[in-house]
């Protein structure tokens, strides 16, 4: 497929791997965080980690919306389906996230809840139009990529007066999460998570542009290279980061120029700010309460805000004690450091959210990398 296959070329990948190994200074180490789950998945799936020199390490960041959604938010969705008997629509990624009392949205569906998987936010609004007698709630999650479509359906629902349609807004913001990581004691004072630079988001940046990252480059002296999600994009971005570190530069560079501009998608940004405003604080799995890190629906669209409409009160719920998702999301631990990884917790039966989404660090490592560290013995 055009604009996909060319960016997966094996011969070019080999060349880029050589260039990275050649330019990386063997006298020092390089630690880069890929913020996005999309990059985490690409790095695991295409074996990029094996193509990098031993002194260059990729740390997986918290940019997977499924992984950072706390249990309490999924509990709200389950309550809507089982107690309020609504038609609960959400993206497929959300259905298997483990929630309280051994439930997930999929298990709530088995108990009679009307839970529907949708491809697009537009499908949720269409369901509401088709079932005027039922309450239809869209449980919306995602970073800046996924927020504009939710804004479109909220605007359209208000315009058309689709009274039975509402949204639980769980949309979160990339820059706040990066800031939280940079300000964390592991990075700032303890130095247990050394970060020399960031591979910046691909599709989030098509919407917000490259400008919001300039602050991190200037204020925290960390290089950022925005990269596409194909394997060659990731490798080129790593090469660009190595060069910035070698030169002592901390700039925002854009590898994904075929889709990302400095300004981003202004039309989408305008619509998002018309429909949403900042939440004072929002709980992230792994990061805890992060100020001004998420969006809520503006009062003007309040009739379509499921949280006020159904009087939903959020209660924070602790993660499973054995689960290390929190530490993994902060880059403090790796999946293989978790006791239940690959034994009790697998993609078929996940305990923690990082095992649910294919972009989660644990699921990516389980699917593509779990035998990497096993010594091969001839029989």
């Amino acid at each position, binding site marked *: 497929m055009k604009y996909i296959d060319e960016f997966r070329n094996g011969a070019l990948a080999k060349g880029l791997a050589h260039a990275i190994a050649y330019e990386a200074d063997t006298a020092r180490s390089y630690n880069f965080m890929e913020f996005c789950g999309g990059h985490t998945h690409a790095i695991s799936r295409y074996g990029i980690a094996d193509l990098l020199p031993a002194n260059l390490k990729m740390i997986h960041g918290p*940019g997977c919306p499924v992984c950072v959604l706390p249990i309490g938010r999924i509990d709200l969705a389950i309550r809507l389906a089982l107690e309020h008997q609504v038609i609960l629509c959400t993206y497929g990624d959300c259905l298997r996230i483990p929630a309280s009392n051994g439930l997930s949205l999929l298990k709530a569906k088995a108990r009679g809840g009307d839970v529907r998987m949708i491809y697009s936010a537009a499908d949720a609004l269409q369901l509401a139009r088709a079932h005027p007698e039922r309450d239809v709630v869209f449980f919306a999650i995602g970073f800046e990529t996924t927020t504009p479509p939710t804004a479109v359906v909220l605007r359209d629902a208000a315009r058309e007066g689709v009274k039975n349609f509402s949204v639980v807004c769980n949309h979160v913001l990339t820059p706040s999460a990066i800031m939280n990581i940079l300000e964390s004691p592991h990075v700032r004072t303890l130095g247990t998570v050394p970060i020399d630079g960031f591979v910046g988001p691909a599709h989030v940046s098509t919407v917000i542009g490259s400008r919001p990252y300039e602050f991190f480059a200037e204020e925290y002296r960390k290089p950022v290279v925005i990269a596409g999600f194909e394997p060659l994009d990731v490798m080129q971005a790593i090469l660009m980061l190595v060069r910035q570190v070698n030169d002592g530069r901390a700039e925002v560079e854009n590898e994904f120029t*075929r889709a990302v501009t400095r300004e981003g998608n202004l039309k989408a940004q305008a619509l998002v700010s018309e429909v949403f405003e900042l939440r004072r604080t929002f709980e992230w799995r792994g990061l805890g309460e992060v100020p001004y890190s998420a969006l809520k629906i503006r009062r003007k669209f309040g009739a379509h805000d499921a949280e006020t409409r159904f009087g939903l009160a959020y209660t924070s719920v602790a993660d499973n004690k054995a689960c290390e998702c929190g530490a993994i999301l902060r880059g403090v631990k790796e999946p293989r450091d978790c006791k239940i990884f690959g034994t009790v917790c697998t993609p078929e039966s996940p305990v923690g959210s990082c095992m649910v989404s294919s972009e989660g660090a644990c699921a990516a490592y389980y699917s593509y990398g779990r035998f990497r560290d096993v010594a091969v013995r001839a029989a």
Partner: protein
Amino acid sequence: MCLAIPVRVVAKPNESTALIDLDGVQKEISLELLDGVEVGDYVILHVGYALARLDPDEAERTLALFAVAA
């Protein structure tokens, strides 16, 4: 979650809708978030919405960069 793919616009039934083709699979998508899309353009598609236009010249430039490094 932020999964999005480059797809080719093959028709525009109206100003806010495009018919796209991905390796033979065709689907109607929304252009509510992107102005000025023409038939023949490649756009980045995410959950049924075009989010950005793909710039073919910039794509060529990036591919050339890979070749230089290699």
